[in-house]
C-alpha cells in the first residue's frame, strides 16, 4: 500500500458524517493478517459492536508510521486504535516486534506532549479473537465518548486559519 493510498484512506475515513450528532470517531490502524481477520470474523459471526470505528487495513503493524497516528488526529479522529498480531505471530516474523519498540518511544512522547492516553490505544488481537476485538472497540468508544471530542487538537487545526 503506497503512502498516498494510506493518506487518502485516513482522510476519507475522517470526513464522512460531519453533520451527524456527535459520536466519537475512532480510527483503527490494523494489521491485515490478525486484527483485520479478527474483525472480519466478528462480522461473519454476526457480532454487534459500536459503529464508531473506521478501519484502515495495513499489511503489518511494522508498516504503521507514527505519522499515521498524528495524521488521524489532525483529520479529526477523537481516538486512535492500533492493533496487530500478538508477539511471535507476525506474518513477516518480526514486524510487530519492531512496531512495539517504536510504540514504546511514541507512547512516551505522546504522553509527554500531553495527549490524553485514553485516546490512543495499542493492542494485540489475533484472527480468532473476534470477541476481544468487539470488546476493545466498545470499550474504547465508551472511553472516548466520555472524554468528548478531541477539542485540543481541533483547536490547533483552526488556529491561524
Amino acid at each position, binding site marked *: 500500500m503506497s503512502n498516498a493510498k494510506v493518506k487518502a484512506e485516513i482522510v476519507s475515513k475522517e470526513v464522512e458524517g460531519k453533520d451527524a450528532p456527535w459520536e466519537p470517531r475512532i480510527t483503527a490502524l490494523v494489521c491485515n493478517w490478525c486484527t483485520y481477520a479478527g474483525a472480519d470474523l466478528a462480522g461473519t459471526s454476526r457480532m454487534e459492536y459500536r459503529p464508531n470505528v473506521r478501519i484502515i487495513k495495513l499489511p503489518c503493524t511494522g508498516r504503521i508510521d*507514527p505519522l499515521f497516528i498524528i495524521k488521524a488526529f489532525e483529520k479529526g479522529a477523537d481516538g486512535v486504535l492500533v492493533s496487530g498480531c500478538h508477539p511471535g505471530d507476525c506474518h513477516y516474523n518480526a514486524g510487530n*516486534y519492531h512496531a512495539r519498540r517504536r510504540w514504546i*518511544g511514541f507512547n512516551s512522547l505522546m504522553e509527554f*506532549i500531553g495527549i490524553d492516553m485514553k485516546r490512543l490505544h495499542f493492542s494485540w488481537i489475533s484472527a480468532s479473537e473476534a470477541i476481544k476485538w468487539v470488546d476493545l472497540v466498545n470499550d474504547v468508544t465508551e472511553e472516548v465518548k466520555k472524554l468528548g471530542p478531541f477539542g485540543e487538537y481541533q483547536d490547533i487545526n483552526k488556529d491561524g486559519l
Partner: protein
Amino acid sequence: MEDQLREKAKELLEGGEIKVVIGYGWNNRKTRITPVFITKAEDVDKLVFNALCVNNLSIYLTRKYKDIQAMGKPAIVAKGCDIKNIVVCISEGQVERDNVHIIGMTCSGVVYKQELWQGELKDNIMPSKCHNCDVRNPHITDSVIGDPVDFTPPEEPAGMLFDKIREFDSKPASDRWEFWNEHFTRCVKCYACRQVCTLCYCERCITDKNQPQWIETSAHPRGNMAWNLIRAQHLAGRCTQCGECERACPVNIPLNMVNSKLALTVKESFGYRAGYDTEEHPPMIVYKPEDEEDFIR
C-alpha cells in the same frame, strides 16, 4: 592545550593522510567561536579550544557536507559529547571509523550559549549535559589532547533540564499539552533544528516529501505539531542530547527537553544510551522479544 592541539594538527596535515582539520577558531572580531577548516599546515595557529567551543562540529562529517567529504580524510576536533554523535553516525553506517581521525579534547564544560560568556565558566551557564558528562575524558579517539579531567557525574541525571522534566512529568496532561502547544505554535518552520543536527542526515527529509504530504510545511500550528513530534520520534534512541537544535532554534523552543525525555525512555526500556558503542545497533532498528508492553492491551 591549544599549543598541543596545533602541534597535533600540524603533524597530521604534514603527514599527508589528513586533508582537512575541522576545528574551532575565532571569528574576525574575536568575539565568537566559529568552525574553521584547516587545510594547510601553516594555518594551524587559527585553531583554538576553550569554554566557548560549544558547537558540535560532527555535522561536517555527514553527507550533508559533500564539499567537505570531497576534500579527503578529515580530522575533527571533538569534545566527548561531540564524539557521541560521531559514534552514532559510525554505528548507522554514515561515517567509516577508519575514515576519520578524531582528536579528542578533554573538557571541563562549555557555556550553554556563547552570549552568556563573561570571562568565567560558572555552573549556571553550563548546559545540563555538562553537569552529567561522563565523557570529559573523551571515550573514542585517535589522539587525545589535554590533561585528564577528574569528574564523576551524578548517578541520577541532574541539572535544570532534568529537574524540569521531572516536574513536568507530574503535571496533568492538559497542562503539558498547553505548554507544548504554546511552544510549537511559535515554530516558524525554519528547520534550523534539522539543519544543525548531525543525525538528521537524510538527503530528503520526510517534511520535504509532498507526494503525499504528511507534514504541512506552512508555519501553522497543525503542521508545527506534526513536525516537532516526528522530529523527536525520528531521533528516539539516537539523539545524544548535544542540544544544538535548541541552541539553533530562533524562537527558543525547548527541543532538548523532548529529546532528553525520549532518551530517558529509551534508557529505561531498552537499557541503551546513544553514542557509546560503534558496534551496537540503534535501539529502534532491533528488538527483543521480552520488550515491555504494559501499555498494550
